[in-house]
């Protein structure tokens, strides 16, 4: 009797495990959410008038409010202190390593150099 049920239980368990795995992946990653913060900065009225420090603070404040994933905030807090020209590529490398998928954020690419830490004069 048990021999009869073993293959049935096994076959029924596989789709359940697969569906559980699919559901565990969030619809929007924290990296995309940070990209959205950069999109908001880009669309902000008068963004071109903002100082580097103001842009940097906008990103940090919104990141702390909207992003739950500590990996993303840890990454940006480190990357914002890198050389302005390398920030986007380094962050992108991290996002792709963590998510395992290609990742792009054109508005971060445009603004990362002027929205990070300010060099000491």
């Amino acid at each position, binding site marked *: 009797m048990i*021999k009869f049920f073993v293959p049935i*239980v096994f076959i029924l*368990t596989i789709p359940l495990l697969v569906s559980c795995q699919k559901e565990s992946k969030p619809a929007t990653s924290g990296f995309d959410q940070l990209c959205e913060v950069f999109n908001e900065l880009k669309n902000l009225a008068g963004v071109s008038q903002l100082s580097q420090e103001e842009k940097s603070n906008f990103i940090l404040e919104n990141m702390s409010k909207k992003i739950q994933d*500590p990996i993303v905030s840890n990454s940006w807090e480190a990357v914002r*202190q*890198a050389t302005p020209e390398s920030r986007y590529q380094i962050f992108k490398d991290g996002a792709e390593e963590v998510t395992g998928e290609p990742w792009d954020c054109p508005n971060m690419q445009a603004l990362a150099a002027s929205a990070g830490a300010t*060099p000491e004069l």
Partner: protein
Amino acid sequence: MENLSKTIRNHKNTTQTISGTIAAIGLEKVGQKTAGVLVTPAVWVLNYSADGSKPSGVDAGIYASGFLSAGASVAVSLMKSVLDDDLQRKFEMATKSEPPKYAPFIKTCYHFASNPQLINAQRIASKGGTAWMHSNGLWLYITDSRGNMVADYKPKSAVKVYQPVYPFQRNNNGSLIWGQTK
């Protein structure tokens, strides 16, 4: 397979404890008799792998059933053990690529904080340290004998290096400006 058997042997006690947890869950959900049948085989499979011991007079189909039913947590434990072994093997390979006098001060970025190793490498560089990726994919960093970060270490074997850029300059929060130097 040799390595897997060795890992199972080394972690026999841990995995049997996990099987005990599975037994408790099984007793609640499917009833004592069935749970007993389903759980025992997972322990038997591990014992057999570890020291060749096996029970007698039990149907082999039930063993398979038990291993598959109770296998998820056991598999996670075994997988973690195998990964730890893999990490150790890569770490030894990577440290051998560097001058022997520095070997005691080289660490893996895996254990720096609870982030993926590349994110930890970014954090290490932002704190004034040098982190590099060996050709085997492992990220490493180096400290001095007091545990302080080393800003200007030049790894012998690296496919990517994150560290403060020379000439050193600080951000207005005091951190050194870093970048990818290789």
